[in-house]
């Protein structure tokens, strides 16, 4: 009973931000139009010149053989045909990238949720911990962090020695094709702070009386987590999942720096965007590289669409009749 009133009360607050509420502007009519366009001029130029035009250009390029110096030569669907059927490197890099996405994304989200639950308290010091756990997210994508990672995970180094103390001998993750990708996964999980702060903000929005009601009904901690926390958090889980997945698909920096630009050992960290980089900026096969980016967009788009479609089954929005 009490719980329904609070959720209902929370809706207008959440929606307030989205209301365009521009009625008074209507009266101003044309003059408003003109100043709006003045304000938007830089953005419009940017969108046209640096987003829309390049997209159209890239689509055109993907149907051509273009090396940046000679005029593009129309070859129809050849690029797409080749990358789908005749390019083993596409197959290999897609494999590495998918493995990375599938392992890193859930682990990162699990770490984020776990620590968010730990920090979701009123105890003193929680803001300090929140900040400290978030910090790796800011530096994790930098070359400096990748270099540190390389030193920590190389043969005979710190992580090796630490795991060796437990009887696990991997002989250095960076140089072992079976483990090198996992060092990248570890680097990604290390940056769980970004989704964590989003989880934490959402956890603090869950009305306390939902938990009290569940407790009165005899629900233990696990039951409360499954029946209250997870459903109430599901929109944010979904948001983080999509965001992290899209980012994981585009991972470049850490793979590039950790493998010294080779994607090695034995191609084990040769991700899709590294292949893209080599095609475009080492070989100047611009047309083919453009085709690769469109396929990436398509794949990420389809996966996101599937997630959205299936989200109705598990994502619960407050105030929704179920």
């Amino acid at each position: 009973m009490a719980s329904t009133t609070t959720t209902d009360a929370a809706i207008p607050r959440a929606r307030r931000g989205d209301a365009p509420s521009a009625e008074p502007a209507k009266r101003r009519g044309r003059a408003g139009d003109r100043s709006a366009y003045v304000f938007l001029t830089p953005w419009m130029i940017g969108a046209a010149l640096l987003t829309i035009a390049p997209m159209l250009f890239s689509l055109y390029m993907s149907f051509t053989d273009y090396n940046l110096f000679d005029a593009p030569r129309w070859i129809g669907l050849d690029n797409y045909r080749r990358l789908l059927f005749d390019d083993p490197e596409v197959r290999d890099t897609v494999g590495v990238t998918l493995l990375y996405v599938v392992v890193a994304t859930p682990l990162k989200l699990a770490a984020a949720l776990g620590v968010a639950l730990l920090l979701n308290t009123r105890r003193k010091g929680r803001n300090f911990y929140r900040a400290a756990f978030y910090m790796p997210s800011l530096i994790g994508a930098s070359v400096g962090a990748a270099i540190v990672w390389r030193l920590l995970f190389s043969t005979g180094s710190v992580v090796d020695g630490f795991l060796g103390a437990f009887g696990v001998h991997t002989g250095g993750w960076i140089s072992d094709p079976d483990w090198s990708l996992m060092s990248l996964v570890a680097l990604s999980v290390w940056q769980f702070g970004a989704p964590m702060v989003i989880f934490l903000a959402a956890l603090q929005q869950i009305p306390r009386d939902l938990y009290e009601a569940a407790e009165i009904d005899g629900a233990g901690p696990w039951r409360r987590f499954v029946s209250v926390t997870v459903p109430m958090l599901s929109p944010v889980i979904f948001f983080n999942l999509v965001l992290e997945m899209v980012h994981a698909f585009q991972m470049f920096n850490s793979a590039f720096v950790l493998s010294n630009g080779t994607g090695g050992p034995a191609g084990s960290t040769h991700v899709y965007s590294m292949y893209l980089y080599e095609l475009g900026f080492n070989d100047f096969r611009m047309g083919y590289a453009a085709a690769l980016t469109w396929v990436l967009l398509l794949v990420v788009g389809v996966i996101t669409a599937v997630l959205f479609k299936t989200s109705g089954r598990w994502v619960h929005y407050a105030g929704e009749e179920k």
Partner: protein
Amino acid sequence: MTTTPVQIPAPAAAPRARSRSLAWHVGAVALLLVLLYPVLWVFTASVKPADEIISSFDLLPSKVSWSGFGTALDGIAEVPAWRFFTNSLILSLGSVVGNVLSCSIAAYAFARLRFRGRGPMFAIMIGTILLPTHLLLIPQYTMFQKAGLVDTYVPLLLGKFLATDAFFVFLMVQFVRNLPRSLDEAALIDGCGHFRIFGHIVLPLLRPALITTAIFTFIWSWNDFFAPLIYLQSPEKYPLPLALRLFVDSTSSQDYGAMLGMSVLSLLPVIAFFVAFQRLLIEGAATSGLKG
């Protein structure tokens, strides 16, 4: 904290709560130590003697040696290290100025003004947030190459002045929408134009969002590797991340000391920014899903 008042009701519960709180702190600190170990390690390892860096996983060096920093500051490829710093600063500060200006005016129009084409334009803006950056890379490079702008800072900065980081436009739109309208309506009645309303009323109130934008822009641009990697060719134009990679590449002798010294120097400003502005950073990250 240790001197809890004695007259707490339900005396049986108090020690229990206290020990649970203690366990919580111990757990959080332990986790934090594991997580921040790499950061602590890079700082202490950078002052270790060269032969200790890889082999020993003691956090503390047996003796302090600044030779790594010395080599790092000498620079590389005949470019002194301060040059890389200056380049990074120019790029980062340029990006901050560009983003703060261009995104705030676009956000004002989207949040406060009604005009023809607003819906589709807003949709395009949101769409560009979701667009993978890789898609634009190849054609943008081609365009800048044809314009003769490769190996200049134009490709790295132009977009910032044209509000292409739609993320921040969105962040500010949300912020402006939550500002009370009564102020700008009063100003409108007083005969203020939109430019004065923006400059005198909205912009000052927008400050928290502007600071969040500025800090994130600075850190991202400071860390940016991919764009400088493809656009810059001459080492004397390199920002720090590219210079760092030069260190990694050229030190076949594995001069870990210099590598770590340089890494520390490149991480330091980000960490300093973080310590100074962590509240704003985290609130920004929590409300808009900004990525670190």
